[in-house]
């Protein structure tokens, strides 16, 4: 640490103090809640823990969560690719407005995200009477849950891809096209390999949010056991019935998902950084050659 040699190092006591505060603060605020989930889940023993998953309502909640994420994540993945291709590879008017609009769902609170769909498709909503007439159920049914999830996870993939693809310029695509590749070939063989880690990173975050979303889904779900309960909603129902061990058992699955997400995120971040550094080196070489 050369930087610490001169005037940049803190006195030893300060160092010790700040590290202790950090460990204590993160310990109390992050580790303890996480630990609580697993301890409460196992409070009645391992057998009771696994028994909570044989409950048919718990199973249907798991299946609905998988189904919801299985629809919402691919849709937002395709959208992220389309939007980033249009935004990063072309110049057009209103581009920064489009980027702002893509980020909009992050500024909308989850409950309001659910509310806007109720206003559209609910019994007294804009399309409510028409849907009623055709016996189509969106609110208090699975389609509403999927739509609300799509809304809250909308920006995740796009916002990882857009800045990265804007940074990588279009030379490689240009070369591929001039050598006779089709647009699709260029995308698949040139663009996609360049952004694969960022893409995966966005998908991991998108999936975590899709499986864990609570507020938006809670508003549109109607909480029908076995039919419109996702895992987080099932946790709430069990908890409100004072069935704490079962609630924490389902919660522990979601906590494991969160831990897996954190690990994947850390691994992908280091990949992304080496990728960026490599891209910078190439760019530097190109500048030197110029």
């Amino acid at each position, binding site marked *: 640490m050369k930087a610490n040699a*001169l005037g*940049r190092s803190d006195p030893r006591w300060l160092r010790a103090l700040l590290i202790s505060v*950090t460990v204590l603060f*993160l310990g109390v605020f992050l580790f303890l809640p996480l630990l609580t989930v697993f301890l409460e889940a196992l409070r009645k023993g391992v057998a009771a823990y696994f028994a909570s998953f044989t409950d048919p309502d718990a199973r249907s909640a798991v299946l609905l969560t998988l189904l919801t994420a299985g629809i919402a994540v691919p849709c937002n993945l395709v959208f992220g690719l389309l939007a980033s291709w249009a935004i990063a*590879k072309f110049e057009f008017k209103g581009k920064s407005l489009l980027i702002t609009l893509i980020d909009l769902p992050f500024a909308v609170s989850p409950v309001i995200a659910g509310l806007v769909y109720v206003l559209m498709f*609910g019994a007294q909503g804009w399309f409510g009477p028409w849907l009623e007439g055709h016996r189509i159920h969106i609110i208090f049914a699975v389609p509403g849950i999927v739509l609300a999830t799509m809304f809250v996870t909308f920006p995740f993939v796009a916002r990882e891809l857009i800045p990265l693809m804007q940074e990588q310029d279009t030379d490689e695509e240009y070369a591929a096209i001039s050598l006779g590749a089709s647009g699709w070939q260029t995308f698949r063989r040139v663009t996609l390999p360049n952004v694969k880690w960022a893409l995966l990173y966005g998908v991991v975050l998108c999936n975590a949010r899709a499986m864990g979303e609570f507020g938006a889904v809670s508003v549109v779900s109607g909480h029908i056991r076995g039919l419109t309960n996702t895992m987080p909603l099932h946790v709430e129902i069990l908890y409100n019935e004072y069935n704490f061990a079962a609630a924490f058992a389902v919660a522990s699955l*979601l906590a494991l998902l969160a831990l897996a997400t954190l690990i994947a995120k850390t691994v992908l971040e280091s990949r992304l950084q080496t990728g960026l550094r490599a891209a910078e080196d190439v760019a530097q070489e190109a500048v030197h050659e110029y």
Partner: protein
Amino acid sequence: MRIPRFKRSSVLPGFSLTFGLAVLYLSLIVLMPLSGLFLKTATITWHRFWATVSDPRAVASYRLTFGAAFVGAAINAIFGFVVAWSLVRYQFPGRRILDAVVDLPFALPTAVSGIALTALYAPNGWIGRLLAPYGIKAAFSPLGVAIALTFIGLPFVVRTLQPAIEDLDAGMEEAASTLGASRFQTFRQVIFPFILPAAITGFAMAFARALGEYGSVIFISGNMPMRTEISSLLIVSKLEQYDYAGATAIAVVILVASFVLLLAINLTQWWFSRRLGRSRA
């Protein structure tokens, strides 16, 4: 970079296809539903709107939501700085794990955070038990709401401060020390002004996120109207009574507040970058 961009780009195919589909999907999933909210607001008479948003129960919910969000963001601004500083500047065992775990509130579903925090801070929980003898009621009180919002906002502050601390110019700190400044003076006059914009941004982002938070709060708050009922919950309970207009009115208040905050964040960043840019030049 010498060739104008639009000329180079025009060789690539697929603009109208990708742009068209992206805008269509954006409109269907985000823009149309959101504009429905404002259309709905337009159908409410001004008198009715004002009566709903200025109802004592609604005002009590804003006071709690904004107050607890402010307290949470302030706690995060102080401790988040300590955390970010330690993670960037010091080497110690477990640093990488702590660094990764900072994102836990992003990754953990809010309902799970909610029940875990409640179990911890309830009178019979590990922390609640320690606080109870001093007459401090953490869960089922406004304090519980602030605790949940601190949990939720932590990564925003730490992740905004970390790059700012990494970017600090080593030369300036060294110069200050060589010229005889104490470590505290260096911090106050050299380090602090440079990380202040990031600290303000992180604070505002944590605050904005806390305004709309729902899942992690509703378990620990106890949800007593006038006392521990947050605005998001008020929206939900109005919806459950099929009071769409009432729910919409409260939602518009919260939504406008968070939009104004985000605009303020962008303006602050623009202002600071201009100021720093000028002082550097």
